[in-house]
């Protein structure tokens, strides 16, 4: 099963096209935050940008923390999401060790579901869909 990897972030120019694409195509809204992948400046010595996105944990702590089964373990790592079951408790976002889950102001979580919709909108091929190892 393929998953999204931000494998060439050193090429990133910070245009946010990936986040905007995720919000537009997956979450049907205009946002750079309500998205499974989000970009921020890396700051300090490592100039440029970093991507915040799901690193395909298996087992995934966010799924373990979810009390309703809205987030479930995805085969090959990461999670699947059923938004209808979400009670906006924020446990998933708190459980993610790499801050890959964003919450909007209503508390709804946004996590990468590894659909790959963002990939074609990166002008510098920073992103790719990769087969899980092993």
């Amino acid at each position, binding site marked *: 099963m393929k998953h999204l990897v931000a494998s060439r972030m050193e090429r990133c120019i910070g245009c946010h*096209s990936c986040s905007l694409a995720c919000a*537009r195509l997956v979450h049907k*809204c205009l946002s750079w935050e309500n998205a499974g992948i989000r970009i921020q400046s890396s700051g300090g010595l490592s100039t440029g940008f970093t991507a915040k996105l799901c690193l395909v944990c298996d087992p995934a702590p966010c799924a373990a923390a979810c009390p309703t089964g809205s987030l479930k373990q995805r085969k090959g790592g990461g999670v699947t999401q059923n938004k209808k079951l979400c009670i906006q408790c924020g446990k998933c976002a708190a459980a993610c060790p790499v801050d890959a889950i964003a919450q909007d102001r209503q508390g709804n979580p946004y996590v990468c579901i590894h659909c790959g919709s963002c990939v074609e909108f990166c002008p510098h091929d920073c992103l790719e869909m990769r087969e899980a190892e092993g």
Partner: protein
Amino acid sequence: MITENFRILEVNLSTERSAIKNVPGVETVLGGSGLAAKLHLEYSRPGLAWDDPSQPLIFAIGPLTGFFPLMSKTVCAFTSPLHGQYAESHAGARSALALRFAGIDALVVIGKAERPTVLHLGANVIEFMEAGYLWGKDALTTGKLLRRILKGSGHRTIMRIGPAGENKSAMACINVDTYRHFGRLGGGGVMGAKNLKAIAIEGNNALELPAGKEYANLFVDIYRKLTDTDMMRKYHNLGTASNLEALNELKALPWRNLQATSDPGIEGITGERFADDTLLRNAACAGCPVGCIHIGFVREKFHKDNQYLYRQVGYDYEPIFATGSMLGLTHAPDVLTVMDEVEKAGLDVMSGGVALAWATEALEKGVVTQEQTGIDLRFGDAQGYMRAVHMLGGAVNDFWRTLAGGTTAAAARYGGGDFACVLGQEMAGYATGEVFYVAQGLGLRHSHLDTGAYTYDQSKAPKDVDKALAFLLEDERERVILTSMVACLFARKVYDPETLRQCLTVLGGQALADGLDDAAARIQKLRWQARAAGGYDPMNVRIPKRFLEVETWKGRTDPQYLEELRLAYAGAIREMCGQGDVKPA
């Protein structure tokens, strides 16, 4: 989505109170330039000084901001410290999307803070932060400290000033997210006058999109044109810096205060030289996949034991002209170093560079003395300019304080007006000929981007006043639509009127799409009326003698053509000003 009314956030720094206002006019003024002019007409007090606390500082976005690629710019409007009239300055970085996701079409700042203040805004935050500890800090340090203090990395904009702004310089810029600027006409001075060190805006809300696939499909079409064709290659490849060699070849690149228009020293400062020797990486404004921001790298040995510091400096054609050829600097790292100091001081690089070039020639000619300047300046001496930048930004004595009010003001006091390279404000880097001199000299923003006059000069167009005038008026009208959307002007070939109509329609703005031509003419007039409200008379604009002495590939400036075009354009502007009719449409 297109809304019925504009949502305006009005912030009063004197009372620390704010208001959300629903302002009508979406169909008549669209947004961006149109909205900024409308708001300035409503808020400004033409009888009062530019730094009166009641004067507004406006940031406006447009109906397409964020919804389509390269709709990534913000229009900043204010009463200019340079000429005391309506001014617009445009910038990108994250400013436009931050405003969009903060849920407002425009921010209007009025009043004056009692103490140095940072205004912190977002979809659910309006905060006035005491910032005495930031006063006196340079623009880059201020950005670094605020990034640490405020949350929301990546999804916010930090617009701040350096010492030049604090000193109310007419050449002070507003630095936006380090590498972009509301550069021209002294917006930084307006913030300084308001005791406003920075405005940080969190874009922490999401917006609705139209149902169905039409919008997403149109987005992809436009995105593909921008990324899969060669249309934008110029901008992300060498960037605007590619123009240096071309203009030098044409004998149209200003050198050493426009004493020459071509020089063999170009080899050291071409776009290729900058790319090969200094280019570290590219960056982009939020919502733009092109990535035209070129960040150069320069290291500097500060100790004999191989101890180095390094600087990362955003470069472009204009900054290289202003701190390179104009100052006689022909070594790319020197140019970047001076540029970096300009960034720290919070000066507009074009005005700052041109002012220093004038000061250098004034010293050479004995118009001013070293006693007055406190420093010797010589073309080609980077070390001198590194110091002079801070003397100008810091307004350290009478001479530099006067120059901070504009080269024209300094020339009026000390002499040297003949060689002040001023076209309404300090010139942009195009010694291309009569049409450009008139266009920048009289133009609304006194910007090389008001019209494509420098391109017109380079075409084979005959010396025909009527044709040149028609071009200036028509090109301005086309651009005003783009700057009301608010598009980056680099995308002007992609966003033709038909494409803009499709974009507006898919977002529910059929009426805006249908009325686009009328809106263009209306907004063009409205902006001139905003300018006229401050007392602008284009007939009073004079083109300094230096521009008559210029020799380009076409030969010498034709004084008769220049004068005839000046009078014709001034007449047309007067007509658009409505001779005193200053009420918004």
